[in-house]
């Protein structure tokens, strides 16, 4: 880790990426400074600086291999599970360094939840899929409290009405779109503050996608959301801010509307208009 610098010092530098940050008077949930990451000898991220605003949806876009998913996984230390992965830089959640030795990574992942590309419910009942997290984190004192968490989480994920009569059935018996909403219910059951979504709709049909997008917009009231997507129209629809990555570098970060109608960087323009490479 590099020595943690106060965010204000970094934000006042003339660096291009931090300039974009300096103009924002938003409440910052996650702040990344000078993040570099290597898989073995191969560097995958170069000096990434970003401020993720609380209760906003931030999209990461860019071609495959640009580092957007790798960067997303830095936010809850999912890269720790890759032995050859090495990271330098400073990532702060509410001002606290998430890579600090004192941080319990299990607790961190409860605060920063994740939803993956392919719906991956546990081979358990619908109820147990959602109850699993609250149980291991001891969030419920008794069965009725746990029931309440399960119900509220399924409601929050817009799935309750469809499954309330079959909570004892296996989670993987649901349709793809329902499974993904089950995974979202599972993520929110432990009351996270941030939800990371790595292409959450790429395996879903347009209707299921629309339901997830609608849900993302609702979840924004209670959570901070960061979503990686290859679908630029989706990024345009769901997010308030968009970050464009290319070859491990953050090229442009700004209001979604601006980025998709009149980006500052020619590289962004080439990418969003399909003129890349």
């Amino acid at each position: 880790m590099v020595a943690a610098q106060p965010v204000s010092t970094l934000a006042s530098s003339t660096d291009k990426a931090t300039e974009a940050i300096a103009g924002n008077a938003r409440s910052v949930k996650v702040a990344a400074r000078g993040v570099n990451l290597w898989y073995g000898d191969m560097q995958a991220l170069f000096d990434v600086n970003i401020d993720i605003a609380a209760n906003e949806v931030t999209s990461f876009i860019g071609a495959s291999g640009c580092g957007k998913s790798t960067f997303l996984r830095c936010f809850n230390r999912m890269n720790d599970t890759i032995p050859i992965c090495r990271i330098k830089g400073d990532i702060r959640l509410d001002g606290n360094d998430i890579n600090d030795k004192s941080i319990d990574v299990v607790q961190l992942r409860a605060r920063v939840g994740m939803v993956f590309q392919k719906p991956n419910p546990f081979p358990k009942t619908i109820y147990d899929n959602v109850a699993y997290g609250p149980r291991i984190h001891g969030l419920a004192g008794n069965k009725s409290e746990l029931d309440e968490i399960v119900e509220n989480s399924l409601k929050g994920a817009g799935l309750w009405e469809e499954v309330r009569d079959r909570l004892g059935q296996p989670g993987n018996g649901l349709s793809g779109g329902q499974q993904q909403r089950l995974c979202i219910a599972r993520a929110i059951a432990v009351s996270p503050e941030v939800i990371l979504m790595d292409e959450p709709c790429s395996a879903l049909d347009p209707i299921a996608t629309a339901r997830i997008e609608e849900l993302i917009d609702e979840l924004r009231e209670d959570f901070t959301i960061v979503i990686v997507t290859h679908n630029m129209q989706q990024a345009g629809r769901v997010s308030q801010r968009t970050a464009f990555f290319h070859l491990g570098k953050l090229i442009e970060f700004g209001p979604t509307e601006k980025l998709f109608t009149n980006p500052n960087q020619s590289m962004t323009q080439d990418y969003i208009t399909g003129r890349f490479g």
Partner: protein
Amino acid sequence: MGELPIAKQHTVRSFDGDLKALADRIVHMGAIAEQQVANAVDAISHRRHDIAVKVIEDDILVDGLEEEIDQYAIRLLAIRQPLGMDLRIVAMALKLSNDLERISDYAVSIAKRAQRLAEEPEFRTLAMLPRMGQTCQSMVKDILDALLERDTDKAMSVWTRDAEVDRLYETLFQELVKTVQEDPRRAAICIDLMFVAKNLERIGDHTTNIAEKIHYMIHGEQINRMRNRPS
């Protein structure tokens, strides 16, 4: 607009072809409208009934192209879902075709009055009217060049010239009012000429609209009307 504003090609090459086809239609429509304005000014200045007929006949071509451009742009939005400059080009094509259609309509309106005025006994032409006509005609020509060359400086110079058209219109208006007061028998002719002047003034306004759209298409920002408006 004839060439793509970005040198690089789309990964999907047929998208380049689509944008080019859209641009070609705008250019074609602009060329007809420009000729209509030139002919209308000629018809009114030289009492040419035959040229006025040509202006009126060309109206159907312009209307057809406007419809075609609208349909083409809608199809592009649906199929390609353009973003960035591509989006601005397609959205502005819809608006540009509307401005060009209006310019064409005003030229037709002038031509119709030119036909009627050609039947009248010869009257003293007001020197100001051909001058106003030529100014508008050159503005239409230059704005289409600016569009073709994607030249915002040229577009903005046309934009500022509209003030001259407005001044000519005001002067002409006063002169026509004076003529009617002095010789009420010429009222009918003067009213026709007043409408011609008004139509030219509106043509000037539409060229400034086009200038603003060129600016937005290229820079992605609306022009600051207050800051740039000539005094």
